[in-house]
């Protein structure tokens, strides 16, 4: 039985709503006012995750992108470069297979694979259990690699300190306009695969213009997980974010 989220219990409550009326059994129809976000349960679990992380001084980032943007390669290279400096672990979300978690472990970091089956995104409930099981050390960094999807992960808070969106130059430069919710929810955009820029039609300035139209204060770091170009700035961002991670 889960003690933190109440799953397996029949009495899950709608968080934040006082249950002070409506108990008397009256015949006939009546109206029950709820005024409750449909995401309330997820948001409540996300707040629990956030507190759990803050108590341990752990920085958690939610990595979101389309499939094939290079998230796992980016993580492998980040782990290799930070080895011995920052303890890092990874929660991998995919519909099927544990191939990504296997790659992360091979790179030298603890990893836990969540298979969402039909699910198109991770939610706070899954991540809460993953954190308990992974049990990352205090002061470490947890990377949550979300299911490759530019739509649904925008709506589901996992308790992370920030969302990081990865866009690769082999995709369309207008992705920020096509999927504005996700870009609006992100704090940092990593523009990946910039080593391929000479070979593809991708107007970086236009892409950044679109991204900043959606979120004017979006930070952007161009890099290549394949060649290591731009990695110093990304690692510096990560270290600064870790220093600023909320602590309870």
């Amino acid at each position: 039985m889960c003690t933190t989220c109440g799953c397996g219990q029949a009495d899950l409550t709608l968080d934040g709503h006082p249950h002070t009326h409506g108990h008397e059994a009256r015949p006939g129809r009546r109206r029950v006012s709820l005024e409750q976000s449909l995401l309330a349960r997820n948001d409540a679990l996300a707040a629990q995750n956030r507190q759990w992380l803050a108590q341990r001084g752990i920085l958690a980032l939610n990595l979101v992108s389309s499939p094939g943007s290079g998230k796992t390669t980016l993580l492998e290279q980040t782990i290799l470069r930070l080895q011995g400096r920052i303890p890092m672990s990874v929660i991998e979300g995919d519909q099927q297979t544990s191939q990504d978690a296997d790659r992360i472990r091979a790179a030298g970091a603890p990893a836990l694979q969540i298979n969402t089956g039909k699910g198109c995104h991770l939610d706070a409930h899954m991540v809460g259990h993953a954190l308990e099981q992974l049990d990352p050390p205090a002061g470490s960094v947890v990377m949550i690699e979300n299911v490759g999807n530019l739509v649904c992960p925008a709506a589901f808070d996992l308790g992370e300190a920030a969302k990081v969106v990865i866009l690769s130059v082999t995709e369309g430069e207008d992705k920020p306009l096509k999927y504005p919710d996700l870009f609006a929810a992100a704090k940092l955009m990593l523009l990946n695969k910039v080593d391929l820029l000479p070979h593809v039609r991708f107007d970086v300035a236009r892409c950044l213009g679109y991204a900043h139209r959606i979120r004017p204060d979006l930070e952007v770091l161009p890099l290549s997980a394949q060649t290591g170009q731009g990695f110093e700035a990304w690692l510096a961002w990560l270290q600064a974010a870790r220093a600023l991670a909320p602590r309870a």
Partner: protein
Amino acid sequence: MHELSLMEGMIEDLEAEAGKRGFARIHRIRLEVGRLSGVEVEALRFAFGPATEGSLAEGAELEILEIPATGTCQDCGAAVEIAARFEPCPACGEGFVIISGGTELRLKDLDVE
């Protein structure tokens, strides 16, 4: 894409709520859905049927109140309604609109017995 899981989660919450508030049937559910909530109203309607099947809300009516996206222009200060997040201010044609309404995704009320 996540409309089905939202609807399934809602029904789970309502099944639990039924015991606390003393109702056994839900006849109507009213939702408020903002234009910028990232949710497709038609997909919600489509998911509602399968999600309610066999539940206390089976056969219930789903009423969706759509909330327009509104905000204030950073440049000209006008209070405006917009169609999408990235749209420039319709009043001055230039400025970035700080969104203040339209991201709602709320369960408003229920008709029950």
